[in-house]
């Protein structure tokens, strides 16, 4: 290859802040967040789009940052777990995950909360089935899911 990691300028707005980052074409969005911007709240686990740990919002919709190239996200508006709390005040979902044991090791938790927030933002009072359908793509190896369901349902209206 003659390309030797040519750099591309990617402009993204993350949690309301504009960022300009120079990355090789092969940089994934999750790596841009974690390594270029030191925003390590977003986790990478399966790396193939199955588990949901790396869930972020791209232009308001949940997406897998592990199978999104950073260059594909140029111009996008991104929300990560770092943008969920209001300063020091936890988002009701975050508090609910603490109150109801919605996590153990925590590796899946940022993805769970970002995905659940996206659901509650568009559907503040989902049924249990709606939560299950929406959260089906967020796997957890620790909790057995009951506590995650409870955390989300208790945080809904």
């Amino acid at each position, binding site marked *: 290859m003659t390309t030797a990691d040519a750099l591309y300028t990617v402009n993204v707005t993350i949690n309301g802040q504009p960022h300009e980052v120079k990355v090789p*074409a092969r940089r994934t969005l999750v790596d841009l967040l974690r390594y270029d911007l030191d925003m390590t709240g977003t986790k990478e686990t399966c790396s193939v789009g199955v588990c949901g740990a790396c869930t972020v919002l791209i232009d308001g919709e949940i*997406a897998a940052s592990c199978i999104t190239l950073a260059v594909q996200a140029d111009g996008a508006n991104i929300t990560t777990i770092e943008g969920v709390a209001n300063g020091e005040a936890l988002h009701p979902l975050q508090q609910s995950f603490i109150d109801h044991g919605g996590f153990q090791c925590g590796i899946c938790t940022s993805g769970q909360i970002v995905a659940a927030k996206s659901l509650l933002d568009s559907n503040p009072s989902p049924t249990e089935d709606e939560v299950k359908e929406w959260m089906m793509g967020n796997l957890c190896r620790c909790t057995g899911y009951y506590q995650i369901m409870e955390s989300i349902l208790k945080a809904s209206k």
Partner: protein
Amino acid sequence: MRDFIYHAPTTIDEALALLDEHGEDARPIAGGTAMVNLLKQNMVLADHLVGLGKLPGLRGVSQTNGSLHIGALSRHREVELSPEVLAHSPLLAEAYSKVATVRVRNMATVGGGLTHADPAQDPPPSLMVLDAHVVLTSSKGTRELPVSDLFVDYYESALEPGELLTELVVPQSPKGAKTVYLKFLPRTEDDYATVSVAALATVENGICQDIRVALGAVGPTPIRATAVEAALKGQQVTPDAVRAAADAVADQVDPLTDFRGSDDYKRDMAVVFTRRALEQVLLAS
């Protein structure tokens, strides 16, 4: 992941020129859900990726002359939720809603999905029974191809180098047609199908008029179950006729043994799910 050159053309002509210039060394990327995984596994070794995300006019659903026109960059989730799709072809919305998870459906595009040509994907069997076609665009012009002719082999579509899939067109179903899509998921809800069946039928005075059946995950490409259709067309619809017709699918499928089941098991399940699909479109009141 190997490095590559990323192009972000802003017009279709520019994208087609890049594909022509780099030939076999260039691949389009739309949602990236299949492509990024292939790149990570070094299954795609292209030096040039042509990003389609900034191309105008390829996203959204419209209708002309009774047909639905779906732009290639429309997301699976948009098809699933589109009121126009739901009113025109509820089977299509149903098939797209069965793909993986909300997260994948937000990212995956209609064009990328059809070009990926994994025989276990959900939309193709339904598109085949709906007699849908795709529009392929290259620097030489455009051509139309029935979705039934789009799949050549495992992960191989009929697109020529330099061609982009730009539109999916779905005609109106026959009046009074009943449709169904069944996805057999013995493992997890977010899995690919172990076997899948789509069917469309019209019945008049107890006689089967129009019958179309297609299956996914039963061989190198999705297939039309022509033997099943031939056994039913013009015949009196009875539970016995349906059962016998479904049995005929066993000789048409060529499944692979994998972690979702043995070839024999999948062949049996193809018969079972074909029968259930037929019962729903032919026998249910």
